[in-house]
């Protein structure tokens, strides 16, 4: 193929979607988007419903009966609040427009650089979180040991406490590690490789515009 043929081929009517394909792509996308939005909304409604029922039940136990003594077991209040905090964060994310990953108001080079910076920031935060898990594990073991020595935790409950708390800690640490190694690190590698293409100089020129 020579120049004219390549350009003619490129500009030909076959190098584009037909009217039917165009309509189908747009329809498929907008219906997928609307379906996702409806699913997120239904999930939020269900979550708040369940939280309300559970909180209502807990409130009845605390204030309507004498099964829970607030003066001794006040930790039930912050423990009840934690899932509400997460639910509100999800609601905020649903309502807000998040910053898009691929932006059109800046150059591709700047957009990739910003994505790399965001990736580095997130990896740093996860590393810090990982350190907290490393510190929390011996502290937790020590606390449980102390409670047992002080007679607060009977032997029969010790194993279940260790299993439950240790398991929960290990599971969440695993999730953090998985996100770090299987999501953020590969993405960082990809972005670095892409940015290096922008930075490598073409012969006889300087590479970026700024």
């Amino acid at each position: 193929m020579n120049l004219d043929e390549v350009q003619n081929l490129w500009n030909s009517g076959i190098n584009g979607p037909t009217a039917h394909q165009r309509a189908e792509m747009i329809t498929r996308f907008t219906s997928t988007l609307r379906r996702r939005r409806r699913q997120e909304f239904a999930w939020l409604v269900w979550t708040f419903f369940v939280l309300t029922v559970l909180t209502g039940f807990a409130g009845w136990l605390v204030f309507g009966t004498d099964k829970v003594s607030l003066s001794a077991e006040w930790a039930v209040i912050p423990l009840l609040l934690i899932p509400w905090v997460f639910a509100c964060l999800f609601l905020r994310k649903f309502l807000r427009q998040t910053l898009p990953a691929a932006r059109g108001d800046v150059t591709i080079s700047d957009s990739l650089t910003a994505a790399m910076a965001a990736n580095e920031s997130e990896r740093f935060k996860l590393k810090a979180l990982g350190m907290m898990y490393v510190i929390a594990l011996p502290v937790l073991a020590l606390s449980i040991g102390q409670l047992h020595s002080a007679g607060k935790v009977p032997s029969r409950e010790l194993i279940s406490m260790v299993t439950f708390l240790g398991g929960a800690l290990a599971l969440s640490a695993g999730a953090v590690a998985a996100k770090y190694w299987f999501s953020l690190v590969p993405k960082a590698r990809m972005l670095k490789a892409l940015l290096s293409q922008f930075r490598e100089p073409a012969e006889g020129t300087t590479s970026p515009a700024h």
Partner: protein
Amino acid sequence: MNRDDQHECFERWMTDHIAILYRVVNGFAEGSDRNDLMQEVLLAVWKAIPSFRGQAQATTFLYRVSHNAALTWHRTRRNYLKRVEQAEPLAGAESSLPDSTDERLEQLYAAIRRLPELDRSIVLLSLDGLSYQEMAGIHGLSESNVGVRLNRIKQRLAKTLNQKEIYEPR
């Protein structure tokens, strides 16, 4: 910008400019991957619309978003594509060209997909008729850098397509 405005803008842009996205997707993906990438690109455009302030042309905005999405999508399948390319060398590159222009177009896209990602992006813009200044503005490169890269890309494409003539840069 409320959601209705976002929908309206999206549908208007897709009616006028979806061919841009179509060519980007074909330049970065093949086979059934095209559908996946098209959905990714459409989602990227949808999410980016609220940040459109009219300071640049809609086409410039769309080129930036679609190429950005394609560049970052493609890389996650790098190992798979490497294996595909090693196992299936560009078909027909050294044989006579088939009569069907559809196949010739597919050969052209296959040759484009063999280029490094940034080169691929630049040549797609060039074929769409953008000037060096426009291409530089989209990528954040200097015009001279774009010019030199484009010459190199065209020579490489020519070699892949087994063509003798190299077309002059604009």
